[in-house]
């Protein structure tokens, strides 16, 4: 176990946070800074990718600016996306009519309720709303429509409800998200091995085993030929001597 922890530690050093952390300091002395490095830390890979879109000066020409996209759409939903092993991103859209309905139903309590993201750990289960391993709440700004959530939990599955937490502790779900899984941030502990040869490759090996060269055996014609080989007695060298 100690060795594994060491390996994990080593790999953590190799991947990928530290790689990029190091690159941040390096900032390419060989390439004096024409690329704006305020963005993500640079490496040749990033710089080269950016150089594809070489665009040395801000566009100064006149272009028809498009009419704008709507602030939100009519569909009501909350969506989760995975950013990395630790963070997930969520955005949501709720119809005004839904807020109005809640105001009507809850009366004054509505104004005392907290707008909350309830983050459920739903790893390895089919979530039914009550069987999460655990959950935590994030109180969100009343005007927010998106959020980055620090799950601190690689290799877990997550589902989020946007809802209201009432002063008496009750929680009202407004919308429930899709389920996402964060990836591992190190090597897997599972070491059982499974090996495979794809069917078409096996078919070819199978055919070659009967001495038919590299073409794949398919169809009835081939089956006949196998039968023929098996029944023709060319099964071993010794059989020739016996005849």
């Amino acid at each position: 176990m100690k060795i594994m922890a060491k390996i994990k530690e080593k790999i953590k050093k190799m991947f990928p946070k530290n790689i990029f952390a190091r690159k941040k300091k390096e900032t390419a002395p060989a390439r004096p800074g024409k690329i704006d490095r305020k963005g993500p830390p640079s490496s040749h890979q990033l710089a080269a990718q950016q150089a594809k879109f070489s665009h040395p000066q801000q566009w100064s020409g006149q272009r028809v600016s498009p009419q704008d996209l709507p602030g939100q759409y009519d569909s009501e939903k909350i969506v989760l996306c995975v950013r990395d092993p630790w963070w997930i991103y969520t955005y949501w859209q709720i119809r005004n009519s839904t807020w109005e309905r809640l105001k009507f139903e809850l009366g004054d309590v509505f104004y005392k309720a907290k707008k909350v993201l309830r983050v459920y750990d739903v790893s390895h289960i089919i979530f039914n709303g009550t069987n999460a391993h655990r959950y935590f709440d994030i109180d969100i700004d009343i005007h927010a429509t998106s959020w980055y959530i620090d799950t601190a939990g690689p290799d877990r599955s997550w589902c989020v409800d946007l809802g209201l937490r009432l002063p008496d502790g009750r929680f009202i779900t407004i919308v429930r998200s899709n389920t996402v899984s964060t990836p591992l941030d190190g090597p897997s502990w599972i070491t059982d091995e499974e090996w495979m040869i794809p069917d078409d490759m096996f078919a070819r090996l199978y055919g070659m085993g009967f001495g038919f060269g590299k073409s794949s055996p398919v169809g009835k014609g081939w089956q006949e030929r196998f039968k023929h080989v098996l029944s023709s007695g060319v099964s071993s060298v010794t059989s020739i001597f016996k005849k």
Partner: protein
Amino acid sequence: MNKGYLSLVLHGHLPYVRHPEHENFLEEDWLYEAITETYVPLITVFEGLVNDGIDFRITMTLSPTLTSMLMDGLLQERYLKHINRLIDLAHHEIERTRHEPQFNALAHKYLADFKHARYIFEKYNRNLVAAFKNFQDLGKLEIITCGATHGYFPLMDVCRASVRAQVKVAVQHYESVFGRKPRGIWLPACGYNPGHDEILKEAGIKFFFTDSHGILHGTPRPKYGVFAPVYCKGTGVAAFGRDLESSKQVWSSIEGYPGDFNYREFYRDIGFDLPFDYIKPYIHPDGVRINTGIKYYRITGAGDHKEPYVPEWAREKAAQQAGNFMFNRQKQTDYLFDFMQRKPLIISPYDAELFGHWWYEGPMWIDFLIRKIACDQDEIRLITPSEYLEENPRNQVITPSMSSWGWKGYSEMWLQGSNDWIYRHLHEASDRMTELVTTYRNSAGTLKRALNQALRELLLAQSSDWGFILGTGTHTSYAVKRTKDHLLRFTRLYEDIKSNSIDEGWLADIESKDNIFPNIDYRVHQ
């Protein structure tokens, strides 16, 4: 007898930029620069190898957007104008530098380079895809496909119909261009999410690539790390993992090859260096200074002081570095062979546009590397993933881990404060596209054209390039414009289709502007 394999993978991609509505369009230069500085030099290297009887194997993505642009008549016409203008400029440069021998020799070199680019371009009837196809038909190059418009799949996971459309449109397009199905795919930005291999399998794709941690953090643990491919659990699609050691030798900003002081300095271009009145005819008509491709200086050192470029020194360095790269792969292979008791496979993928455009000497480096591998040793053998799987069909079965080769290894490059706003709109459009497909299973005439165009607009909006540019935070206006333009066109089509009020004139207009994938079938989006 070789002890291991090396797979060089060049990922060739540019987003679809084609603006017939403007006589000159700045961002179209991305393609023209890449033709002159990357694609023609690579074709030249491959031709040289074939002519000299040097056997080689390279795997190369030609993304569907890049392929479409290379085959587009308007852009071909415009490239010819572009290269002719550069030839004109090079002539003026020879004249201007006649009393400065070092610069004059370089001006002559640029004139020769540009004329050669025009020669190659015309030799293949302006269609460079035909050149690459030729090397594929000769068995030297394996061309793989990519997402139709390089959409970043992990952030499309919530609407897999879009992932499916990206894959299927790409496969159909590949078939129409190359006359056979693609065996492999470069997932845009190497972005993999478990389960997407099911879509690849449906499309008949046999293999894809991930970054190292995509394999190394897979479950169960991969016995041979990234030095053998794995099959995805449940689908049997093969995944090849990037080798970081060989990547680092090229990419690292400290010890990476392209940073050598003898190499050409990317940022000292006469488009910026020379007086405005002189260079004006060769930059953008609005007076925006641009890279011309004529650059006279070498990197020289860390500071701003730059010395003139000496091609012979750079060539010498490229040869040395090719030798160094090969030596390191031999050592790596030697060690891994003993360790694994099986021939290791080293996957070294790079952006194709790194070579030539960013790293001027890159194509030369590839040339030296291939020749050295063919003639100077027999420990490593160049191989394509398809060939490797033929020779080594038995591989471990795992589920690779979600990953990308972008900044920090996951999705943050495309999902941060500066670009996260796009997903609300992209996902909504995906859902609406699925709704359209469900509602209009059968269609004909104008309705069918509108539905097909809706899918084109959605795919074009999904290009990860826009999110990438927004993420870098510089010169974002074009990326914003493209994202919004396509989404707005999609939205109007969606509304017009639903209300049975398609404006045929407008439809024809956007069909002629966003003319990619002429044979698209909207029903793949499901």
